[in-house]
């Protein structure tokens, strides 16, 4: 039974009917969105903006997954929890160390947030690299499942560190960035809050792109990702490069933690779900591909916003199901992702 079904499935794949089905589905979604836009452009654009802002946050986390996967082929389950813990710590620093609150002056707020980033980003970069050294490095030669299982264990440990330090309640920033309209472009009001998010995310993405494209270290990262053996033979220090990748991923996660706190509440276990969403984004864009991770994250952010903000959708109760359905559909229909190249993993 199963075998014939599988054979049938393979035949279908070969004739790429699945691709056509997938394209038709995507087309239907686009038509539906166009109809929604025609129906109520204002609302549609507002929701789109929400989706973009959320997607920008997801992008920072998704990049961490994709960087690590690209170089080690490891799904770093603990990454989402590094992000959550960094957000909680950022909350403490902002409130207890800098004493920011809703009445603080604007330079103080900007300076305080930047200094917080200057503390959390290196701190969590080191934490992430330390996790790699302690938990993953000894298992590099073990069967492939071993580090994956360890990553799951690390994820739970980090979650419980968050629980021990911050308790089971949600934490948030004081409301020091007013949620009032800053500028209006084409009828869409952009809030100060959104601007704060973009002014962290966009420079970081540019710096990362520059780093990976143009610096010596970035080149060695790409070389190790392509072919570890060949890179090692050409004198690239593989271990150092891997540590560097984890440093970068940790720093991005810390930035994402602060950006997330600007928008939402954080709990010790938020990182688990956010991590899965971000991982889905990374897979959707093509895991191992940096631009893909950003694209996937924005798309997931939009899907989530449309699902929760527009009428006639399944609604917020089903968001998780929809995101995972996208993950599964991507892996089945196009395992290499939107921008990735077909790898032996998926094919």
């Amino acid at each position, binding site marked *: 039974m*199963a*075998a014939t*079904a*599988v054979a049938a*499935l393979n035949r279908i794949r070969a004739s790429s009917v699945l691709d056509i089905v997938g394209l038709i589905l995507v087309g239907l979604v686009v038509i539906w969105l166009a109809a929604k836009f025609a129906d109520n452009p204002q609302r549609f654009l507002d929701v789109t903006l929400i989706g973009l802002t959320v997607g920008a946050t997801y992008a920072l986390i998704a990049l961490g997954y994709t960087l690590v996967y690209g170089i*080690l*082929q*490891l*799904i770093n389950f603990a990454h989402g929890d590094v992000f959550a813990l960094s957000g909680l710590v950022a909350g403490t620093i902002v409130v207890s160390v800098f004493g920011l609150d809703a009445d603080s002056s604007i330079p103080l707020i900007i300076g305080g947030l930047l200094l917080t980033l200057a503390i959390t980003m290196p701190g969590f970069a080191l934490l992430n690299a330390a996790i790699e050294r302690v*938990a993953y490095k*000894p*298992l*590099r*030669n*073990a*069967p*492939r*499942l*071993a*580090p*994956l*299982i*360890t990553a*799951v*264990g*690390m*994820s*739970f*440990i980090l*979650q*419980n*560190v968050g*629980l*021990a330090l911050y308790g089971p309640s949600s934490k948030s920033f004081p409301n020091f960035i007013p949620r009032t309209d800053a500028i209006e472009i084409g009828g869409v009001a952009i809030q100060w809050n959104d601007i704060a998010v973009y002014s962290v995310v966009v420079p970081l993405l540019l710096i990362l792109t520059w780093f990976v494209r143009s610096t010596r270290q970035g080149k060695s990262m790409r070389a190790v990702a392509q072919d*570890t*053996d060949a890179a*090692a*033979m050409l004198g690239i220090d*593989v*271990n150092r490069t891997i540590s560097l990748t984890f440093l970068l991923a940790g720093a991005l996660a810390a930035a994402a933690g602060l950006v997330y706190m600007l928008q939402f509440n954080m709990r010790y276990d938020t990182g*688990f779900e956010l991590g*899965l969403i971000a*991982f*889905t984004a990374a*897979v959707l864009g093509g895991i191992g591909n940096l631009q893909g991770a950003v694209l996937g994250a924005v798309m997931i952010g939009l899907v989530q916003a449309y699902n929760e903000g527009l009428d006639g959708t*399944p609604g917020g*109760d*089903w968001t*998780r*199901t929809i995101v*995972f*359905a996208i*993950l*599964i559909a991507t*892996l*089945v229909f196009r*395992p290499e992702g939107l921008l990735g190249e077909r790898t032996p*993993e*998926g094919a």
Partner: protein
Amino acid sequence: MTSIAATLDPRRVETGKLAAIILVGVGVIYPFIVADLRDLPLIGDFIPGVRSMVYVLVVTMMALGLNVVVGYAGLLDLGYVAFYAAGAYAAGWLASLHFSQVNFHFFTTATDGLQGIHISMWVVLIAAGVFTTIVGILIGLPTLRLRGDYLAIVTLGFGEIIPQFVRNADEDGLGFNLTNGVNGISPIDTLGFGSTIFNSDQYYWTAMVLVLLTIFCCIRLRDSRLGRAWIAIREDETAAAAMGVPLMRTKTWSYAIGAFFGGVAGAFYASFKLGANPSDFFFTFSIFLLCMVILGGIGSIWGVVTAGLILGYLNIEGLANIGAKMQEAGLEFDPTKYQFGIYGVIIVAMMLFRPTGLIPERRHKIEIEEGVHDTPFYDVQTEGALTDRDPRDD
């Protein structure tokens, strides 16, 4: 028995057998002696009640099912809780008041004339297993093509979707009340014969029989042609395929059989708890089961049973008991709050320091010690070494 048993040290087999017989013997008389044991000084407070023991046995059975998937076939399944949910809801559909628009009775313990479908729980146990097997195959078919870690994330996805689905699949969410939403399905019929229904002790014995049956099946499966094919896939998928092992079919079987045990255990536990409630089905439960498999030893039946008993006990009662003792001693620490952190530490520590588990499975031990050649995690073996060749071969 076949090759694996034969190659083991005969004395070890004898000791193992003896230990198993003693354990089963104590297990059988446990409900009669539990009251006396609880009066003992010092350890008395730590003795689990019979109801807790049912839970312990149920999770042990699920861990054995997960062991078929993770341990034998080497497919990391992070969504096993989906099978538990499927089994529990299958029991809810077939033996409760839920579908009150239908009226169907079949050798049930429910009173005559009661609304809803009421099929004998014994039949439901099997039916739930079969239903869950089908769910497992449906999940498996599109995903088992993927290798290792992708599979893990997809099963994790299903493990998240199915609980959310059962939470939402009611009148509001689906337009048809399939799972009764957040309230879950309750009450579910009890096991029993005729009109006599089982009490906790009888449930406990039934759970024991189920676990023993599962152990028996696991041993026979491990030594069967299928089981050897699973282990071949676990060790080296490419080589197994080259030797003519049909990958998809073999993997799907492991998924299906693992799901079957999960479904039966889920239905049984739902009947014991008298309900299927969406709050039982969280990702953490999958990790809890995975922790048993890792702690006991991947692929090792007796290891998984041991770890299942230990962790099951800790989860239902042990940690709370230890916490109570610590608080009596003046320590402000509640281990139940950090149970998953504790499981996380166990997982990481085992993987780093004793990846073969408490009671290693011989074959798996060789894999860990000598390494396998299935897509190495990263090809540079040690710092400075350039190939994935074993240095001892040079």
